[in-house]
């Protein structure tokens, strides 16, 4: 009888071994992932009532602070600028967790004056346990201008300094009041925000990918110029419809007309008038691989270093190199081509910066209570995305878009603005207007992407009619009257 008992014993030991493996999996291998899951309220809960550091804009406006409650030793978090910074600063709530910078920099922002053994040891070693403060790259006037310019539209605006990658404005709408997630009504408010069909908790500037539409023609043009496959003057046939190879489907222009005279046209005309017929042909000429090389140098198909996870921008090089019909559609920023507004602003920034792409960043420095700097951001080049000659040519082409093409709405009196419009397929049959651009052309200090998520309110607005004028107001705020 010992035989069967021995086998059963072995079975139980195997089961106990499985428990050990499973507990190792959850407590060691996946521990950080579980700990940092936004639904895990523990990290924020242990911080309840504790002081957290300041978050200050580059021009000194406090956007998050902790205030000691009267009659208790507990601190409450205050967001003086409310919904304007909701997607950048985020919230730190003991009930629903943390988001954005409050989450990414929580270890710096939190006070370490608590009871954990490691912190007590640090205190004994003379380390500063007071909360640290953040200085962020956002410019408060530009942020407010972008927030106002977006109005009641659903969408996002992100503006970055092309030379350094500093994010000067980042706005997403609909927004929310972070204070709603701090008080007694937190859970009810959270339920409302989560179930809101406008999805106000999502940061459309960095956390959601969209079809970029014709703004992607900048990438195709950069690849074409870099490889020498085309120049602005290169001529193309000028049909009403471009027949997709191996398919009965066609691509036509937004106007339903040919690009020029119906006989021949040029790459420049195709770019300035945003002709899909020209760029469908050009995309096939350049090929999926070379477009992919340029896109990837601009941060596509890979993770970006940012305070939070950015979804990857998508250009399906392998798949498209075997399918010209799909390639042509993807080259005009449709089909499976996807990017966040941040990625699109980076394209404009790289052109503005002479072809070199710089990694965008949000936090300039971490400083202690005495104002002493503890960490500063160092400018990180992502790499050269195109030659400086290509960047110069593309700048001229983009300026023509604003002076005489689809992007005239982005013009700012007295300022040379360059840009590209787009009107991409959005949800439920509505189109998503886009504008990307930079200014001033001779020494650019700001690159911008504007995205409107189309809905019944925006109707059939295009990038030129809706997104470009919004961009104009933001650029004006940055460059005029300072």
């Amino acid at each position, binding site marked *: 009888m010992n035989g069967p008992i021995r086998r059963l014993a072995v079975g*139980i030991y195997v089961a*106990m071994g499985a428990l050990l493996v499973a507990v190792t999996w959850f*407590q060691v291998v996946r521990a950080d992932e579980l700990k940092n899951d936004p639904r895990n309220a523990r990290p924020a809960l242990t911080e309840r009532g504790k002081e957290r550091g300041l978050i200050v804009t580059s021009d000194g406006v406090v956007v998050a602070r902790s205030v000691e409650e009267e009659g208790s030793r507990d601190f409450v978090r205050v967001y003086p600028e409310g919904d304007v910074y909701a997607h950048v600063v985020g919230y730190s709530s003991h009930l629903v967790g943390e988001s954005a910078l409050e989450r990414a920099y929580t270890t710096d922002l939190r006070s370490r004056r608590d009871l954990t053994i490691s912190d007590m040891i640090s205190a004994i070693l003379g380390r500063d346990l007071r909360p640290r403060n953040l200085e962020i790259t956002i410019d408060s006037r530009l942020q407010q201008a972008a927030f106002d310019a977006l109005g009641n539209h659903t969408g996002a605006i992100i503006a970055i300094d092309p030379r350094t990658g500093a994010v000067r404005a980042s706005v997403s709408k609909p927004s929310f009041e972070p204070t709603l997630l701090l008080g007694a009504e937190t859970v009810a408010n959270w339920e409302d925000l989560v179930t809101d069909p406008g999805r106000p908790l999502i940061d459309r500037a960095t956390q959601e990918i969209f079809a970029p539409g014709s703004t992607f023609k900048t990438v195709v043009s950069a690849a074409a110029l870099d490889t020498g496959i085309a120049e602005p003057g290169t001529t193309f046939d000028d049909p009403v419809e471009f027949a997709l190879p191996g398919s009965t489907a066609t691509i036509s222009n937004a106007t339903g007309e040919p690009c020029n005279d119906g006989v021949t046209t040029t790459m420049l005309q195709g770019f300035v008038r945003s002709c899909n017929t020209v760029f469908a042909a050009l995309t096939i000429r350049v090929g999926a691989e070379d477009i992919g090389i340029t896109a990837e140098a601009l941060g596509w198909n890979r993770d970006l270093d940012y305070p939070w996870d950015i979804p990857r921008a998508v250009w399906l090089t392998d798949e498209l190199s075997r399918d010209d019909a799909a390639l042509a559609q993807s080259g005009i920023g449709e089909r499976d081509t996807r990017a966040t507004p941040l990625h699109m602003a980076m394209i404009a920034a790289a052109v503005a910066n002479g072809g070199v792409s710089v990694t965008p960043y949000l936090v300039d420095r971490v400083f202690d209570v005495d104002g002493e700097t503890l960490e500063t951001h160092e400018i990180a080049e992502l790499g050269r995305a195109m030659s400086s000659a290509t960047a110069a040519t593309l700048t001229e082409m983009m300026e023509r878009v604003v002076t005489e093409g689809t992007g005239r709405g982005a013009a700012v009196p007295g300022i040379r603005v360059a840009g590209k419009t787009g009107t991409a397929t959005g949800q439920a049959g509505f189109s998503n207007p886009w504008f990307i651009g930079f200014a001033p052309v001779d020494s650019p200090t700001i690159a911008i992407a504007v995205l409107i998520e189309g809905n019944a309110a925006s109707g059939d607005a295009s990038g030129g009619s809706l997104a470009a004028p919004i961009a104009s107001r933001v650029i004006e705020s940055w460059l005029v009257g300072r």
Partner: protein
Amino acid sequence: MTRRAEWTTLVTASGLAAFGVSLVNFANGGGIDVQVGLTFLVFLIAFGTVATAVHIWAPKATPLLLPSVVAVTAIGFLEIFRLDPIRAGLQRWWLLIGAALASVVLWLLASRGTSVLRRYRNLILLVSVTLLVAPNLPSDWGFPIRGMEVNGSRLWVTIDLGFINVGFQPGELAKLGLVVFMAAYLADHQKALREAHRRVGPFRFPEPRQLIPLLLAWGASVLILVWQRDLGASLLLFAGFVLLLYAATGASGYLVSGAVLALLAGFTAYQAFDHVQRRVIGWLAPFDHFADEGYQIAQGLFALGSGSLSGAGPGLGRPDLIPNAATDFIFAAVGEELGFAASVAVIALYSLLVAVGIGIAFRSRSTFRKLLAAGLTLVFGVQVFLIVGGILRLVPLTGITLPFMSYGGSALVGNLVLVALLLRISHEEAG
């Protein structure tokens, strides 16, 4: 291990429980108070009583069992205290009652040995079945013993004596009685069961007639599942019986038929019962059903992940975020506050207990005692696996208790009696 070493470990483990309680106090801004002293005293008195009873009535018993039991009880107690000091106070009373009952069992078996259990097997069966169905008594009749439904399961009996109202789960004691009966029954019929079989491929299958007890046990388990909506007890009872049947006969066909029957019942139950469906959904995708079915499991995993290697520290984590942490999820609570190190230690302690129990079964010369020791150990081991595996998503979560650690008087008493039985068997089989 000498008696002296055993006592040293008892005192140390009692000190561990008291130390844990004081750490929880410190975390809450308190200090060393009456709770610390009471905990130390209760642990020392309870386990000192059992150790003394062993010394008098089962002096040749293995000294390896009790220290591990004290250790897991102490770790569990500190976490119960952290979660709910009032329940911890009750748990201390139950610990004293359980220790007393375990000592009484040792005393009762002192003169005539465990074989007396074999003789009264039918009476034990009758009592066990009565205990098992007792929660199905009406909850609103005049008789002072009533059934009670808690969290959708019908496992509780309350005795209302007018001046005091005591609630307990008779199933925890019935479980022991059923194992005793099965061991006795199989010891009697072992020969017949072992010889009457036919081969099908690599498996030895028993004659159809010999399958009747298996089917009866299966039927009883299904009834528990339907009547009392207790997935855990149902599974545990059936697994215990099948494993014991295999231990007695060595016929792998029992394992195969048992698994087939369990799967069949499980699948039907999944189709028919909402509460089983919810368990399965919560098991397979806890994070996709965070708001409802998966909430408890997801919170348990958050607790374990947040505890990480060294744990948050006693009183410094938030295991109170897990629903029913003190009863169902005490393992996750320990993992959160004491860390991976404690999780591993707890699993190791249970493995040690199982190993000692299996060792007792191995060395037993009498068939009955061998099967009893094996049966008690297997049920114990399977129970640990089901609940810890449920928390760690290896198996669907069944709401059974973690022996010695979970809050729950009946379970603590039942498991202390289980240990007393194992100790007695090891005494009888020693030298």
